[in-house]
């Protein structure tokens, strides 16, 4: 759809609007206009204007994950939230932080660090915004400790497709008043609304952090080591596994806490890992393992299946990195003809399903996305998808928000 002059001027009265360039395309789908609102009110006005003119809208934080998910079927307006980059309130005594959606995670971390605090969310995609982190539900090694943003988001402001501004939750950690809309928005890829502000629970920065690691030759051994650690009582803050150059795996364990306690727990962990275990001098890379041109997957399984999943990944030539201690792994399939990649994806998906989890293609070249089912089945199959569609239909009855980017064409 071409954006009419009337629509452009309605959007332009809400906030600065510019014609979109090639760099604004969303996973290959060209965008019409880019709107740059600076407040929740401006976002609401943009959304009302878009609604009035029947325009599709794709929210964008810092644009670090534009190639994730399915390409949207249309992107008349990209709502760019980079101007909403403020940390609105850091209430250190209450261990909470309130930010705008366009604030970079790293900037939020820098600010709360001044009070010896942190948001326990790894910067898995450098430069990512808070809004993007919520929308794509990214997580890294430390999900082992307190979970993901799902477990840390305590309040949210969202602008609906019709421009109505709604809040859920609040500024206190404990709160069961009303529906937890934050849960629905997390991982929804911008298909239910535009998150403009969010409140998160913070944690103290531990006095000491140390990594202990061991290299093992195969998936079976990696599984054993991971299970020894997670079933012990050393309280690891992360249990990571990564494919090594020799075709084996490195299992790395993060211990955090009081200095003296960490020293003792490191010693106990080295015992669990075996005689070749050693302290790591540098932090393992928390980012996802795939490079441009590769196919990146998120693979999950029940803990008892970690070894089998690692074996399956190795079997299809994928490099793996991820939170083995929680059953969440990321895999990179090297560039190959799309049909071959599709076969590997299906094989991994079959294994994940068998092991109680799922396989999602997070990022991939366009030709791969054309031949693979990016999202795969949702829990509950058709009935589950139907329920999701009913939610979408209520929030966005005209299907103008990031259309087609999510599961089942939502």
């Amino acid at each position, binding site marked *: 759809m071409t954006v009419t002059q009337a629509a452009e001027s309605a959007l332009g009265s809400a906030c600065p609007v510019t014609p979109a360039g090639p760099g604004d395309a969303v996973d290959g789908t060209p965008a019409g206009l880019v709107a740059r609102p600076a407040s929740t009110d401006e976002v609401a006005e943009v959304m009302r204007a878009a609604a009035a003119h029947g325009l599709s809208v794709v929210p964008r934080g810092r644009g670090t994950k534009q190639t994730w998910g399915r390409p949207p079927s249309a992107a008349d307006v990209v709502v760019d939230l980079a101007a909403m980059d403020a940390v609105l309130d850091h209430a250190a005594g209450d261990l909470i932080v309130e930010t705008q959606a366009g604030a970079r995670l790293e900037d939020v971390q820098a600010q709360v660090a001044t009070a010896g605090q942190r948001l326990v969310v790894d910067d898995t995609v450098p430069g990512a915004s808070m809004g993007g982190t919520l929308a794509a539900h990214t997580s890294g090694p430390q999900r082992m400790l307190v979970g993901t943003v799902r477990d840390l988001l305590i309040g949210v402001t*969202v602008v609906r497709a019709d421009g109505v501004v709604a809040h859920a939750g609040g500024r*206190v950690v404990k709160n069961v008043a009303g529906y937890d809309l934050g849960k629905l928005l*997390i991982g929804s890829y911008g298909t239910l609304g535009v998150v403009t502000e969010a409140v998160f629970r913070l944690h103290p920065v531990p006095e000491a952090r140390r990594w202990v690691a061991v290299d093992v030759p195969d998936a079976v051994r990696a599984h054993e080591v991971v299970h020894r650690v997670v079933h012990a009582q050393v309280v690891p803050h992360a249990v990571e596994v990564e494919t090594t150059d020799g075709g084996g795996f490195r299992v790395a364990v993060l211990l955090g806490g009081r200095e003296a306690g960490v020293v003792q727990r490191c010693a106990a962990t080295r015992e669990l890992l075996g005689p070749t275990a050693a302290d790591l001098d540098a932090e393992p890379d928390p980012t996802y393992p795939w490079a441009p041109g590769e196919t990146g997957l998120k693979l999950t399984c029940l803990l008892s299946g970690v070894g089998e999943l690692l074996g399956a990944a190795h079997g299809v030539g994928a490099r793996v990195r991820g939170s083995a201690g929680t059953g969440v792994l990321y895999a990179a399939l090297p560039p190959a003809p799309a049909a071959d990649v599709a076969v590997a994806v299906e094989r991994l998906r079959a294994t994940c399903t068998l092991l109680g989890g799922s396989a999602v293609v997070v990022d991939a070249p366009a030709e791969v996305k054309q031949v693979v089912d990016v999202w795969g089945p949702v829990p509950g199959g058709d009935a589950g998808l139907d329920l999701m569609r009913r939610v979408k239909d209520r929030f966005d009855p005209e299907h103008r928000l990031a259309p087609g980017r999510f599961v089942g064409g939502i």
Partner: protein
Amino acid sequence: MTSPGLDAVAAVAHRLLAPEDVITERARLRTYECDGLAHYRVTPGLVVVPADAEQLAAIVRACAEHGVPYVARGSGTGLSGGALPHAEGVLVVTSRMRAILAVRRDDQRAVVEPGVINLDVTRAATPEGYYYAPDPSSQQVCSIGGNLAENSGGAHCLKYGFTTNHVLAADLVTPQGETVPLGTGAPDAPGYDLLGAVVGSEGTLGVLTAATLKLVRLPEEVRTLLVGFETTDQAGAATSKIIAAGIIPAAIEMMDALAIEAAEAAVQCGYPDGAGAVLVIELDGAASEVEEEYAEVTRLCEEAGSFEQRLATDAADRAAIWRGRKSAFAAVGRISPDYIVQDGVIPRTALPEVLTAIRRVSEESGVRVANVFHAGDGNLHPLVLFDDAVEGAGDAAEEVSGAILDLCIEHGGSITGEHGVGADKAKYMPRMYSDDDLDTMQLVRCAFDPAGVSNPGKVFPTPRLCGEVPGRHKAPHPLQQAGLAEVF
């Protein structure tokens, strides 16, 4: 009360369930007239006690078909009237669905039916070295299904989170009577996090069965410390110092003088004589870590002015300390014929200010208030004492209780931290949320339950009809069809 719809559901129940599991006699129906919030009472139209998820789904299907409202009930211990029955509706009781279907140590998961008692999950997992972390004070009797509906917390959620952080998957019996699995045993299932929306929705989006729960490794070391202070301000200051020092204890619980008096009278927990406030502080984790934190916590409490510190030396000791805290609500019955348990939340740093304000409200009204709370996360449970035999006393207590909620909202808090909105607090929701906020929550309700048959009248103050999604379902609204309501 009967109606053609209710009779039709009763007929289905009689056909599918054992005779003793379908209750229609008025005297027996009345035993289900309230949950843990006993001053709201409604005799249900019909009570069914399904033996399994299939029977439960069949009952809900029958309700959907005949436009009959239903309310799910676990152990009936809820404190917000969430399981208050509907006079022309069906009360679906899950107390026969008590199977622990699996305890999988290697996966750190348990799969349980909704009627399973919270503490029984931990009992089943303990031999494997694991436990279920959310521990509401009623954990010896409350059900997992009720916990899921309410997103229950407990003393240890400061460190370990709430029910929602410990549920990976569950089967949802939708308000249409269809069974839809939500989530997977593994984290982050693709698609919308419907389970995250349903947990804590107080039964308004359907009924959850067969829940997959996360099990947590038992800590190597647990230290439970009882600390006596002269004033609640000192105890509050100690709490702040501990948190500021970067320590997140498994629990920090506070009780004031009146609550201590009640607990002593009820369970002889041996709290320090003459204390104006006590803190129960629990540290858990790796032994070396707990050792370090313990030394610091004791020092910080002393700095804040504690006059007595007592470390539990064995399991019996620890149990005694917790008995005082966990029996506090019931114990208040020893010092007052009637009481309201309030459940408000404030930012923790507002604690001294809000406690002073509560004291002022209490003095001005002459209504006594005992304070018990989860100090670590600012979740207050003021117990408003009254004697219902005295004319007007109930209303005065209700007023004080409402004033306390207003204090919570004024300080940026919440009207409920763990007990839920239920029937009790629906009227307060507009004080916390705007019309647009509530309208947006209704979108979720309408997606799951357009006919409004699943626990109607709870959570939201003004139930509204869902209308139709433009260009989609063309059939008349079921309530309209049944002649029960007009679309507006």
